[in-house]
């Protein structure tokens, strides 16, 4: 019997082509629809970015973080510094990602002292420390938050630029995740996620792979933080941008959509976006239901909505798994 190893083949071309098409359509939208629509899509874009970044950590490297708001908040605050030093906020976002990624690298040595649930809480403590340190700087607005010092004056252009920034960051996050996972490192990561000890015994450099993902995820969250900061022209309150509710959001989106797939977080983000749009007026009960939904889905539908759609991984828009076929 002949066997061959496939990795999507025609499906992969269709998936990537489809994604590129969607990005092109999204990029053209400011010419086609009103700015209120693109304004809402900014939110959807950063939600997808955040969900994708959290999934990269949890779904591919087995690290459950409750502290990604550290990098999200840092993204916003480093953008203030970068902006004050003459960068415009759009190219500044690239600088922000790099800087925050460099910050996350030494921090990972601290966080990796802990595993599993304790890693989760350790990252939360680190986020609190970052917040408590940031609010000690008066130039960053202390505990009051602050505004961006220079940003495009013309409101129409500003909205369009902000939207394009959000689309670019989202596309880079999804495409970057796809490329990393299809690389050699991606294979290592999936081995680590499935069985860390076994992977290590086969010569996979476990800690190096996890550290790379931790740094990439921080950089992505920082870019999302910068997008949030640009879209609201600043930070209203450090407690909000460094708040654990962002982690709750990321976890919810990834669980609902399906952890450990590229498609899942996107679906989860869309689901949350719609829920938030139509039900957020119903007050605090809405958050109670969000929490309950996360519990029910993780208990009874562990592969999330995408798991239902893809019939437990048989179909994929972004195939990263190798599959053995008999010819």
């Amino acid at each position: 019997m002949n066997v061959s190893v496939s990795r999507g083949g025609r499906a992969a071309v269709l998936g990537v082509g489809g994604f590129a098409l969607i990005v092109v359509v999204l990029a053209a939208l400011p010419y086609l629809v009103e700015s209120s629509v693109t304004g809402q899509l900014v939110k959807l874009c950063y939600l997808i970015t955040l969900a994708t970044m959290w999934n990269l950590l949890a779904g591919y490297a087995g690290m459950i973080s409750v502290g990604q708001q550290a990098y999200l908040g840092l993204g916003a605050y480093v953008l203030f510094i970068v902006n004050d030093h003459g960068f415009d906020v759009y190219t500044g976002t690239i600088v922000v990602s790099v800087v925050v990624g460099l910050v996350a690298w030494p921090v990972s040595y601290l966080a990796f002292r802990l595993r599993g649930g304790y890693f989760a809480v350790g990252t939360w403590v680190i986020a609190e420390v970052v917040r408590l340190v940031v609010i000690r700087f008066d130039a960053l607005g202390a505990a009051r938050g602050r505004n961006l010092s220079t940003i495009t004056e013309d409101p129409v252009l500003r909205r369009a630029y902000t939207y394009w920034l959000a689309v670019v960051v989202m596309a880079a996050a999804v495409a970057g995740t796809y490329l990393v996972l299809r690389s050699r490192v991606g294979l290592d990561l999936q081995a680590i996620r499935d069985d860390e000890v076994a992977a290590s015994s086969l010569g996979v450099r476990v800690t190096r792979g996890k550290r790379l993902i931790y740094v990439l995820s921080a950089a992505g969250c920082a870019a999302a933080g910068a997008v949030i900061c640009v879209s609201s022209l600043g930070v209203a309150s450090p407690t909000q941008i460094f708040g654990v509710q962002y982690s709750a959001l990321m976890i919810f989106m990834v669980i609902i959509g399906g952890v450990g797939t590229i498609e899942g977080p996107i679906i989860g983000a869309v689901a949350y976006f719609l829920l938030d749009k139509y039900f957020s007026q119903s007050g605090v009960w809405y958050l109670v239901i969000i929490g309950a939904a996360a519990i029910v889905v993780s208990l009874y539908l562990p592969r999330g909505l995408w798991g239902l759609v893809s019939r437990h991984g048989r179909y994929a828009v972004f195939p990263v798994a190798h599959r053995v076929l008999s010819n």
Partner: protein
Amino acid sequence: MNWVNALVQGILLGGIFAMAASGLSLMFGVMRIANLAHGDLMILGGYVAAACATYFGVPVWLTAVVSTVALGALGFAVQRLLLDRAMRVGEFTPLMVTFGLSVIIPNALTQMFSNDAVPLGIGALGTASIDLAPGLAIGWFPLLTLVASVFVLTGLHLFLYRTQYGRITRATSDDSRTVRLIGVDNRRVYALTTVIALGTVALAGTLYTMRQGGVTPFEGQLTVLFAFETVIIGGLGSLWGTLAGGVALGIAQSVGAQLSPDLPLLAGHVVFLLVLVFRPQGLFGKGVTA
């Protein structure tokens, strides 16, 4: 004398942290569940007590009993309905479930009681103190909480090391499959563990609420960090380490407050991170890291 006072107040504060952390440590030890809702359950315990006193006129000392029993019963339900299943589904599912609970509890409390504090006054006991020297006084109530937490930890120790159920619990912690082979139902051990964990954390939450004079819905986001920090500073798997961890965290916070009123939280977190860097097994750990 200010510094001695800060030290003493820190030790007294540490008692509550240690009591709150003991259940967290127990659940992790027996089931490998890191309960992210532990702080919110503590605050829920405080709410049960405060609501009993405020709305139903239950005597203050009795509210602690009501709260402990109520959360213990809740623990049984949570274990049987959610966590038992979560442990079968996947490695990280229990973490997700407890995180879901930590979203539900404070928001449900806000909906029911608003964001304003629900008071739980303890009258003259709250201010009574023993004056040791000028500027150095030990409050009766903080002293009582420290004694209570030593009692709780001693009780847990005696349970784990001197009773048949305790031996079974420790054996389940070491190897649940083998224990099942010799005829023990793991689920009963797990249920008992969670009942104890939630009962003790409710008591800690009640004492915390009495100490503060009241409770607000989102304080669990702080107390969960204190409880985890206490466990890590003290070292996993050691109840006396937990007491030491609570005291160390309490001292860090009150000395931080002595330095500057906006420093207590940061000082506590920094001590935790320093322990992670220089002594990851904790002060009394047995060489096992989390």
